């Protein structure tokens, strides 16, 4: 399969550079004539006799064998450095998007108003009239458009209170992306904080857990290509590598929860372990469907399949798979609505309650890195990676196609990947701002009872498409069996459930049925007992009154 052409040929450049430098080293090496012993003669009186060095190794002969290894080593070092730096720099917008976008969402009347207000603001108040800062009054039309839209659709209100509430304007210079450097401040502060290990904690595991989490999370990016020639490593089974490493971090989460010796962290770690176990399997089966329809376990070939062979994004061929991948990834990165492990309401901060300072900073960064990795993977698997939206279609337009082709050839692929990933993270934030938190048993029920059969169905659909759309050499037997098995499993799981058990699970029982808690623990006299006591009391009272009356009558 031919790879997509991209002028940002990073690997090619680096390999050329390394090869060129190696050749220069080869030329600069000493030649044979100094091969032999070297004698250093010192002035008499300092040392008794001359110093004789042994035979100097002939570098030129040996260099021929080690040159490819050296070239590979240097090339790998340089490419890893560049890719890691790129990943770190392009991850900085993620917390920025989180802060700003969630702020706008929470401050707005509704989602649509929110999205519009991100750019043009509301009630005449925007995020600081950035267009007035543009030189030569270039932003004047934008300001006019903003004013017009606000006058027509904006929630411009006569109450200055409402308008003020709507205002989330910032202080500072517009070109500094206010709030963008908050992440720098936070992490520099974490680096300067004191490191506390709880007295009863298991110190070794406590120290190891953040390292496990952050290292495995960074290692995922070794196989993530930012462009057709912009990746650190691309083995044949890079998808398997990525998914395997992605599944290691929950182990570190469980370590952290257990080693802190705190009940909240322990409950959080348990929840995290159960939830991630329940969502790893549908995730892997969904990714397997993507690999099946693309016919490869290599991410680059998956993207090239969408870009060139099928010329259709997997999103349109496997919509079910895309939805499953999004849901399971949100559960994997433990965001709302699946953030039971770190529920602030009942567990103080979840499994990282006891972590502070730089250890917690590392975990915090790892969370965002996992989100970022999830977004990039979605972009690569389902959104065509570094292909512009509908690139092939637009390039096939008769007249304008050539110009568009030239335009697309000028834009490097990493631009499209990053744009797709950031927009997808905005979707993550949108979901977080508009949904509630799901209970643990409901999360597990959802994962085991719906996502697993649906992922199998998705795999069957992928096999069907692969078999019938691309190479029709297969018989219909296997995909038919897959589809039937998935459907049957779904029917069994959904229809054949125990209604009573489900009822008792979702509606446990009224407070009457349970053992009385404080303050109802004391024996409560029933109304009948009160009736009995009271009748006895009235009988006694009646008797005494009668006797009294008799004595009065007698006297």
């Amino acid at each position, binding site marked *: 399969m031919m790879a997509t052409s991209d002028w940002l040929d990073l690997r090619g450049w680096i390999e050329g550079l390394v090869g060129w430098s190696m050749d220069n080293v080869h030329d600069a090496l000493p030649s044979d004539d100094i091969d032999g012993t070297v004698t250093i003669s010192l002035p008499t009186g300092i040392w008794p006799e001359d110093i004789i060095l042994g035979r100097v190794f002939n570098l030129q002969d040996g260099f021929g064998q080690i040159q490819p290894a050296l070239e590979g080593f240097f090339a790998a070092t340089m490419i890893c450095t560049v890719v890691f730096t790129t990943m770190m720099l392009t991850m900085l917008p993620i917390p920025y998007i989180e802060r700003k976008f969630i702020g706008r969402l929470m401050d707005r009347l509704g989602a649509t108003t929110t999205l519009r207000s991100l750019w043009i603001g509301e009630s005449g108040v925007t995020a600081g009239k950035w267009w007035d800062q543009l030189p030569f009054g270039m932003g004047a039309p934008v300001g006019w458009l903003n004013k017009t839209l606000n006058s027509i659709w904006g929630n411009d209100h006569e109450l200055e209170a409402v308008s003020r509430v709507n205002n989330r304007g910032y202080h500072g210079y517009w070109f500094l992306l206010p709030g963008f450097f908050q992440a720098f401040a936070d992490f520099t502060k974490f680096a300067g904080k004191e490191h506390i290990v709880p007295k009863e904690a298991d110190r070794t595991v406590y120290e190891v857990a953040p390292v496990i989490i952050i290292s495995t999370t960074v290692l995922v990016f070794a196989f993530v290509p930012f462009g057709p020639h912009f990746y650190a490593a691309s083995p044949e089974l890079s998808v398997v590598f990525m998914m395997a490493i992605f599944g290691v971090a929950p182990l570190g989460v469980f370590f952290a929860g257990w080693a802190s010796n705190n009940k909240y962290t322990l409950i959080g770690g348990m929840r995290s372990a159960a939830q991630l176990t329940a969502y790893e399997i549908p995730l892997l089966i969904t990714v397997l469907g993507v690999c099946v329809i693309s016919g490869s376990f290599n991410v680059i070939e998956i993207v090239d399949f969408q870009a060139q062979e099928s010329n259709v994004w997997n999103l349109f061929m496997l919509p079910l798979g895309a939805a499953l991948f999004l849901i399971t990834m949100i559960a994997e990165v433990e965001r709302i609505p699946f953030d039971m492990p770190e529920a602030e309401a009942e567990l103080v901060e979840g499994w990282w309650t006891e972590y502070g300072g730089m250890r917690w900073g590392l975990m915090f960064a790892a969370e965002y890195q996992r989100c970022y990795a999830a977004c990039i993977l979605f972009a690569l698997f389902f959104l065509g990676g570094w292909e512009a939206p509908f690139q092939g279609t637009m390039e096939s337009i008769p007249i304008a196609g050539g110009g568009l082709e030239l335009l697309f050839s000028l834009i490097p692929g990493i631009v499209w990947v990053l744009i797709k990933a950031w927009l997808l993270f905005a979707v993550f934030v949108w979901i977080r701002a508009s949904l509630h938190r799901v209970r643990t048993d409901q999360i597990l029920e959802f994962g085991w009872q719906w996502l697993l059969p649906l992922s199998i169905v998705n795999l069957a659909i992928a096999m069907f498409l692969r078999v019938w759309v691309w190479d029709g050499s297969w018989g219909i037997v296997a995909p038919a069996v897959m589809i039937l098995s998935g459907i049957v499993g779904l029917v069994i799981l959904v229809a054949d459930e125990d209604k009573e058990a489900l009822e008792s699970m979702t509606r446990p029982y009224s407070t009457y049925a349970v053992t009385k808690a404080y*303050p109802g623990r*004391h024996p*409560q006299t029933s*109304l009948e007992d*009160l009736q009995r006591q*009271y009748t006895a009391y009235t009988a006694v*009272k009646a008797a005494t009154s009668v006797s009294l009356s008799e004595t009065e009558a007698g006297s």
Partner: protein
Amino acid sequence: MGKIVSASSQKAAAESMASALSSMDGVSAEVSERTSGTNPRNVVSVDCASDNWRQLAECLRVEHGVDYCSMITGIHWPEGGAEKNWEVVYHFMRMGISNPPVVDGMVQPIITDPTTLEGTDVPLEIEVRIALPETTDPKVASVQDIWVGADWNEKETWDLVGIDFEGHVGMRRVLQPHETPVGFHPLQKQHKLRYHDFEEMYDDAQGFLRKPSDAGKIK
């Protein structure tokens, strides 16, 4: 117009209950007309001896359907004399509330029109006063098992005032710290507030400036 309980029916119900309660020995009840804001309200105010309190409580719960204990107040009267050195004031309310019925699987909420309530359905408030003689460990019978709502009220009354309730299960400090010394009940009158005396207030370590005009004042 808002639907409120008519004062006339409330007065009639209150008088009937007062007359019924007065027939018990050790109990004297009358209806006290009170005004809150602009509306008059009729309160059944009962004076009860501490020995008859348990029977009175059961009578209220069983015969008169008083299903709600609002508040229990303990008062310490050091200058109240020998017969009324402590006082316990109960506030009950008759709500006449029952579980809404279930009709073919759907709960039908009970929506009553307060203006049409008559007889024993009329919401009433009852005020029961029990005077205790001068003693070091005042006691009254507990009604914890009749009205569970009285449970923490009794706990609080013991915690703050020091009036004990016989038959109360699980008595403990609820508002003060658990390590509070035994016998310290701050609402007893012999305990003074901090800085109740200006002299003490000015002589403390906080370094207030002393104003001569405040010399000898007692807060």
